């Protein structure tokens, strides 16, 4: 090692130590603030509840643009999670981005199902809730067509609905990280193995499947990540943006919803065990659901590092539909970061806008 290089390294090390000392002081101050302050408010965009039917809530967001595209957008949230992940905070909200870009945005967001809603089946979601909402959106907007955007299981429900209700006026279908080939969700498959997993017993005993049980299932996919997340949080306590973002995602991740018992039984048997959506053998409400019956323009956004819905599980959607106008976008990021947060705002949202804008007139 030359003398010059050694000098540079020693200077650099001294600078790094000085920086770490500064950060340690900042960590102590911010750490107290972190513990003392309440959780950040989320779901920031102004909205109005326009339909409530038990577990179903349909919200209409107030437009933020002087003129809007002709076709309204109906977002369908995953049944296990709350919709505020797509509306985290001003500047970090997909909903806000769409509103400012000139879209008329509605969202189906779910509440914990009531005890008597344990009887809700998959068909109640795809043949009642979504059609009711599409119909109301069409009526309120005085338009015949609606773009439907589904996130994760919301994408599954939207795909089933679009395939089985061809005359309902779906103009465009957008899916985020949507599983189709459930045999490729290897760990979930293993845990729900019908030789060991007695779904009937679980649903009969619990009614609605508790959110704690679902939360544990998701946590088990990456058991070390919670500890590593805490270590990284401590490391970045000096950084206000990091802490804010961590708290929002952490709160959302833990804020899971229970699932209606019969819906859980249906999805376990028909999707996990029989893989009916992939094989084209799925029956919902007495109708055969074939993805090949989807002919509307389709955009599927998938994440390269999705640990919940692996690439192989989401890939078949684009292959199985009959739409001439179809596009799959694979982006860097994970299951959540592909749709929400700072990276999504740079990567995915502009792509979504570019695709949707020309199909919304």
């Amino acid at each position, binding site marked *: 090692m030359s003398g010059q290089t050694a000098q540079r390294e020693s200077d650099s*090390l001294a600078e790094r130590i000085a920086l770490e000392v500064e950060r340690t002081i900042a960590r102590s101050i911010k750490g107290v603030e972190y513990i003392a302050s309440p959780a950040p408010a989320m779901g920031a965009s102004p909205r109005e509840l326009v*339909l409530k039917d038990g577990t179903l809530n349909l919200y209409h967001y107030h437009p933020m643009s002087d003129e809007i595209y*002709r076709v309204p957008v109906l977002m369908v949230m995953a049944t296990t999670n709350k919709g505020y992940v797509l509306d985290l905070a001003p500047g970090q909200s997909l909903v806000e*981005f769409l509103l400012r870009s000139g879209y008329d945005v509605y969202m189906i967001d779910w509440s914990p199902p009531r005890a*008597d*809603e344990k009887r809700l089946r998959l068909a109640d979601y795809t043949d009642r809730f979504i059609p009711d909402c599409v119909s109301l959106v069409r009526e309120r907007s005085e338009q015949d067509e609606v773009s439907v955007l589904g996130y994760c299981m919301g994408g599954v429900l939207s795909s089933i609905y679009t395939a089985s209700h061809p005359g309902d006026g779906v103009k465009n279908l957008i899916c985020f990280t949507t599983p189709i080939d459930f045999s490729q969700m290897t760990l979930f498959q293993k845990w729900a193995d019908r030789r060991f997993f007695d779904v009937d017993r679980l649903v009969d*005993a619990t009614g609605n499947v508790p959110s704690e049980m679902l939360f544990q299932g998701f946590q088990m996919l990456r*058991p070390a990540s919670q500890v590593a997340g805490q270590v990284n949080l401590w490391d970045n306590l000096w950084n206000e943006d990091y802490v804010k973002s961590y708290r929002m995602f952490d709160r959302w991740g833990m804020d899971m919803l229970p699932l209606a018992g019969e819906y859980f039984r249906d999805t376990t048997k028909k999707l996990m065990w029989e893989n009916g959506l992939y094989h084209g053998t799925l029956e919902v409400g007495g109708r055969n659901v074939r993805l090949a019956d989807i002919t509307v323009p389709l955009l599927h956004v998938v994440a390269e590092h999705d640990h919940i819905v692996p690439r192989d599980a989401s890939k078949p959607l684009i292959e199985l539909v009959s739409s001439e106008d179809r596009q799959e976008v694979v982006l860097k990021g994970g299951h959540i970061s592909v749709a929400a947060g700072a990276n999504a705002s740079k990567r995915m949202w502009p792509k979504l806008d*570019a695709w949707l*804008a020309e199909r919304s007139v």
Partner: protein
Amino acid sequence: MPDKPPLDPFAAWRDMVAQWEKNVNQLANKSMASDEFSGSMNQLMNVMLKSQQGVSEAMVKYLATLNLPSRQDLLALGEQLGSIESQLNRIALLLERQNRHASPAVARKTPPRTKRPLPRTTPQQPS
């Protein structure tokens, strides 16, 4: 020859944490993907459900002896309230629809649906 990157123990520590997380997740996923793990996990769940059911049945009898409502009774009450709430929501929706048809000017608070996409060559910007 390029210089070696300067020594940074803090970056090395962060790399170590990231590597630890990756290795533990990989190892755990591998062991959790076995029949043995799935079998034991579900067996444990069945035992828990059975004991929960036992406690629940005993509790119903106990509450009945004390002449107190059980969880089932409260759920039935909740179901009735839920049904009333749903009916009210339906009535509210019908009224809103009628109101909208009666005074369309009130209904059309939304901006005009005339927006067109920007030309492809121009970078897309929120308006």
